[in-house]
C-alpha cells in the first residue's frame, strides 16, 4: 500500500510544518535595517510610533490583525496604525522583503523599523514591542 504510506508521510510532514508555522505566527523579531527610501509613499507620520501592517484581499487573518492593531492604537495616543494593501505598494513590499500577509512592522518615532512579525500577533506581544518605544520618548 504505497498510497497509504504516502498519505501518512504527507500528513506527518504537514503536522511538523504546521506546528512550526503556528509557533512562529505573530512572533516579533528584530528587523533588518532598511533603505531610507523603503517606506516612501506609505504615509508614515513622523513623531508617532507606527504599527505598519501589510495586508492583501486574499487574507483572512489580516482582518483580525487589523481589528487588534486599530484597537491598540486607539488606547495609545502616540501610536498610529497604518494598513497598506500589498498590491498597491509592491515597491515597499520588495524593499521590506514582505513575503506573506499579514506582515507587521513596528516603527519608532524616527520612522525606523524596529521589529517585524508575520501572522496574527498576540495582543501582549504587540504591547511589549511598543513598550520600549513609548517610554524612550
Amino acid at each position: 500500500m504505497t498510497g497509504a504510506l504516502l498519505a501518512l508521510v504527507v500528513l506527518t510532514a504537514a503536522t511538523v510544518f504546521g506546528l512550526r508555522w503556528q509557533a512562529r505566527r505573530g512572533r516579533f523579531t528584530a528587523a533588518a535595517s532598511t533603505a531610507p527610501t523603503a517606506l516612501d509613499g506609505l504615509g508614515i507620520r513622523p513623531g508617532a510610533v507606527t504599527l505598519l501592517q501589510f495586508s492583501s484581499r486574499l487574507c483572512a487573518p489580516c482582518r483580525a490583525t487589523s481589528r487588534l492593531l486599530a484597537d491598540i492604537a486607539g488606547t495609545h495616543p502616540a501610536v498610529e496604525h497604518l494598513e497598506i494593501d500589498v498590491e498597491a505598494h509592491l515597491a515597499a513590499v520588495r524593499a521590506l522583503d514582505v513575503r506573506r500577509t499579514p506582515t507587521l512592522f513596528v516603527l519608532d518615532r524616527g520612522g525606523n523599523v524596529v521589529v517585524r512579525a508575520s501572522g496574527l500577533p498576540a495582543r501582549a506581544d504587540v504591547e511589549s514591542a511598543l513598550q520600549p518605544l513609548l517610554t524612550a520618548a
Partner: protein
Amino acid sequence: MTVDSRGLRFAAWLTTAALVVVLVTGSGWLLLAQSLVFALGAIFGLRRSPYGLLFRYVVAPRLGPPRESEPEAPPRFAQLVGLLFGLAGTVGYLLGAPLLGAIATSAALAAAFLNAAFGFCLGCEIFLLLRRATRRTSTVPTRKQEGAPA
C-alpha cells in the same frame, strides 16, 4: 460576502478525508469528483459548494449561531489552487501517470490538512509571492547593495 469559519474548517476536513482516500486507492475518478467540488467552490463560493451546503443544512443547525465569519475571497482562492492540483492529479491517475497523480494529490492534501488542523491560509502565504513574481514595479528606485562593487 462572508462565510462561517466553522463551515470552512468542516469543508477542509472533508477535503482532507477525500484526498487521503484518493491517495490510498489511487482513484482518478474520486479525485475528479473532488476537483468538481473545488471548481464549484471556486466559482460559486464556499457557501454553495457541496461541502458548504452539507454544512449549512446538516451540520450548522446542530451547532447554534455562528461565532465568527470570514471574508469569502481567501478560501475561494484556495479552492482555485486546489482545483489546479486536483485536475493535474486527475489527468495523471486517469491517463496512466500515477506518479503525477500521487504528487499533485499530496500537495493538495498537505494544503487542505494544514488549513483544517492549523487554520493555515494558503492565500496569505502564496498570493503575495505570486504577485511579486509576476508583476514588476517600475516605481522602485534601484538601490545599490552595500559593499557590492559599483
